[in-house]
């Protein structure tokens, strides 16, 4: 089959690779219809993630048709159109049973995956270095889906591919942002980042009844999307003093919930901060902590946060803040999100600003990385 392979720093190419095969009884194989670029791929693309090898296939947000099922797959049949959660989880361990699918104990293979950066294994993901998980990415004609009954969801007939594919990662991440913030009617919510995750966090906050939702970014075209498609207020930090604006727009209290959805820094950061390496700054997080009302909640969604030093920890103490974060537990929310998509409450297709054949994958990533031509997400069709 054809797949978009990483060849070296900032170099991608479509190559012939072996078709995926069933490896476990709970696996199935999906023929990809849509596969989306994600900010979490950028450190991989840049070659800043250890263990990534030439030939590894990128991509983790995808939708497609089932073409083969393993003997233990119960919920899916050949020809089902499914969206697949970007995170891989078993559905059976204690964490999965608590709904903490991204914390699954059984989502990766091998000892390297079991002994990661943060002391304990976390759930798996498609399109990571083979050594860190063992599952090829989705920018390909076919993908193997482990724990298929747990991670794949049949898409309702009325929901288009370009809408449903965002239920794979961006929409559940946004939903989690609002849920971790316990956004309630009457709340003022501020979201840093107007990419797909930021926009869908804002949309989730509105669906949960927030009174005002304000999105902070520097790109006017993204902020226009926020106004038009989400019904949230834009705040461009290039022209306006963010803490002052947020204070004023929240009656001097500060936003009840502040969500950082900026994604990986453009600068090296993901693995900085190890001994001998530079730690990252996170201006958005600093601003969120500074702006948040007393007793409010700050939520971290941006992947690739890595290590951050000079964090204003005193504000957490003095203002009595709650700080939460996470990778999305999509298995918990995707059915609900698909229902909302079917009811037209949640619209996401505008995020697919660039629809390209897989062959133009390298070009799509360049547009996405550089935010060129108004690119929010590039969507590939193999």
């Amino acid at each position, binding site marked *: 089959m054809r797949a978009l392979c990483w060849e070296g720093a900032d170099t991608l190419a479509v*190559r*012939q*690779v*072996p*078709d*995926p*095969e069933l*490896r*476990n*009884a*709970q696996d199935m194989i999906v023929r990809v219809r849509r596969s989306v670029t994600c900010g979490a791929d950028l450190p991989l693309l840049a070659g800043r993630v250890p263990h990534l090898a030439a*030939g590894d296939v990128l991509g983790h947000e995808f939708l497609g048709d089932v073409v083969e099922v393993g003997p*233990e797959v119960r919920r899916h049949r050949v020809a089902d159109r499914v969206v697949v959660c970007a995170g891989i989880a*078993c*559905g*059976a*361990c*204690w964490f999965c*049973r608590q709904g903490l699918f991204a914390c699954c*104990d*059984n*989502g*990766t*293979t*091998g*000892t390297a995956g*079991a002994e990661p950066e943060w*002391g*304990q294994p976390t759930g798996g993901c498609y399109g990571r270095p*083979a050594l860190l*998980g*063992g*599952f*090829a990415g989705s920018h390909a004609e076919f993908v*193997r889906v*482990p*724990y298929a009954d747990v991670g794949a969801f049949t898409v309702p007939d009325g929901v288009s591919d370009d809408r449903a594919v965002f239920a794979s990662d961006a929409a559940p991440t946004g939903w989690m942002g609002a849920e971790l913030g316990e956004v309630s009617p009457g709340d003022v919510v501020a979201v840093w980042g107007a990419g797909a995750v930021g926009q869908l966090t804002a949309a989730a906050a509105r669906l949960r009844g927030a009174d005002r939702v304000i999105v902070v970014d520097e790109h006017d075209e993204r902020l226009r999307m926020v106004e038009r498609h989400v019904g949230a207020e834009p705040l461009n930090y290039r022209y306006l003093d963010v803490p002052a604006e947020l204070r004023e727009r929240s009656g001097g209290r500060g936003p009840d919930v502040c969500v950082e959805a900026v994604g990986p820094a453009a600068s090296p950061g993901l693995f900085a901060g190890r001994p001998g390496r530079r730690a990252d700054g996170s201006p958005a997080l600093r601003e969120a902590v500074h702006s948040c009302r007393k007793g409010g909640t700050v939520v971290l969604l941006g992947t690739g946060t890595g290590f951050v030093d000079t964090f204003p920890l005193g504000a957490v103490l003095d203002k009595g803040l709650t700080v939460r974060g996470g990778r999305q537990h999509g298995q918990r929310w995707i059915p609900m999100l698909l229902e909302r998509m079917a009811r037209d409450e949640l619209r996401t297709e505008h995020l697919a600003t660039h629809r390209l054949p897989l062959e133009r994958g390298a070009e799509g990533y360049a547009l996405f990385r550089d935010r060129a031509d108004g690119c929010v997400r590039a969507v590939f069709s193999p």
Partner: protein
Amino acid sequence: MARMGRLASGGLALVLAGGALALVRRHRHRPPTAAPDPRPGRWQVVTVAGRPEEVLPPGRWPEPLRRLDGAVELSARPAPGGRGTELAARPLSGEPTLPGLAAHLVGDDPGRFLRQALREAKQLVETGEVLRADRSRLDRPGTAG
């Protein structure tokens, strides 16, 4: 209750201790519940979603720990708060040279090997199979590309 299994040469001998207290007394420290320690000889523990008798059935060690015949001892105790069973293993003390197959399997990093074996035993109980990685091109002679 806690249960200790110990493999003797030629077969399986399951020693049932009188309870968690007996286990503690015998080994002075209870098996650690936090992150594994790479030092050989230490208990390595995983929490498995299942009851002790499912995780470590009497008279029958779970795969892949069964292959460590004569090389390790095991214990299983209920985890607090309904979290399942704490399954612990450590190399048998006083046997720096492991016999035959066990030595081959354990290699030069027994701690790491044991950790992986426990992880696989846990996966088998929880999900019914051990999750396998995609095969690379190198593992698949004759495939296209």
